[in-house]
């Protein structure tokens, strides 16, 4: 039965290559699809019935794309339901957001920088301010 669940979940994944490999310490730019005034108009159906729009959510329905750039603190889980927690400082306030990387809400994710880290969860960065939050860049050969 676990195989059936795994096979069902597999369908949720985006096409291969669309989601980059993300590790803690990376600096990422997350492009988020925004729908002004809710999402009910998209499929013209009840929220639960968006099966008709399933898998082929048209990009032209996206009204705005917002970019959230920050450091990956943690990667939760694996496979289609994987989530990443991204932290940035916005107007002096720390902001953390957790995304499903395979969700249609995410337009794309770019990895701009790899940081040198020795842990899987970088929650210690929350206690640091200013220059101390910087991570050394990992040089890729």
């Amino acid at each position, binding site marked *: 039965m*676990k195989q059936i669940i795994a096979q069902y979940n597999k369908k949720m994944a985006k096409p291969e290559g669309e989601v980059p490999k993300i590790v803690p310490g990376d600096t990422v730019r997350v492009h988020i699809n925004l729908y002004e005034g809710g*999402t009910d108009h998209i*499929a013209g159906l009840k929220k639960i019935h968006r*099966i*008709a729009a399933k898998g082929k*959510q048209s990009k032209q329905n996206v009204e705005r794309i917002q970019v959230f750039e920050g450091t990956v603190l943690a990667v939760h889980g694996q496979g289609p339901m994987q989530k990443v927690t991204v932290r940035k400082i916005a107007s002096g306030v720390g902001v953390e957001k957790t995304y499903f990387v395979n*969700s*249609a809400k995410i337009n794309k994710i770019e990895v701009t920088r790899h940081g040198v880290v020795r842990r899987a969860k970088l929650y210690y960065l929350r206690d640091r301010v200013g220059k101390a939050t910087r991570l050394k860049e990992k040089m890729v050969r």
Partner: protein
Amino acid sequence: MGIRRAVPFFLDKAMIKKIPAKKIGMTSAFDGTGTTLPVTLLQPLPVVVTQIKRQETDGYSAVQVAYRETLEKRINKPTKGVLAKAGTDKVFSKFYEVRCSPEELEGIEVGMEVNPVDFMARWDQINVTGMSKGKGFAGAMKRHGFAGQQRTHGDPDNRRPQSNGATDAARVFKGSRRPGHMGHDQVTIKGLTIFEYDKDLNVIAVSGSVPGPNGGMLFVKRISERPADEIAAVEGEE
């Protein structure tokens, strides 16, 4: 030698509105906009008509069907006899009956196979009936939602049911909410929506949770069908 009929012909019949299913387990799914939903995967099972009960012969009209395929060594001789009479070459271990009006019996024959693959994609809202997980002997807080007592200020035990009524009657009234056996009851969850039907895996993803353990048997009853335009949209996608 099961006789297969085109299903839309008797789609509205009572026996087709209730089918057995196996609970696979829970997971989450993305809808069209990327919002996650909690879903339970259920595997609808094929059934075979084994007996038709008529007003004249049995005093009521109903359709008896067999479900849950198994090995031949697992069933007893009387069950084999019923299956042989129906003329099916598959081996089933369980039976149930669906009451229906005498008119609805028309067109249903003994030995007819009903495969949910043919019509499952059209179902929209369902009721799911099953046995809930047994909880054993449970206290009043868990079983009836009692508030319990305060945790601090020296309370010796804060999960008691406490008083059960006045001293005048000098007895416990029937039906009083007391600790006792909880769970393993028949539970029906009404008005669940089918998020989608996966034809390849033969599983329906029902939004929300259903009673019982993973692998348990359930009965799924259709209460509404998808609108025609939605069916067309889903079929067009495949």
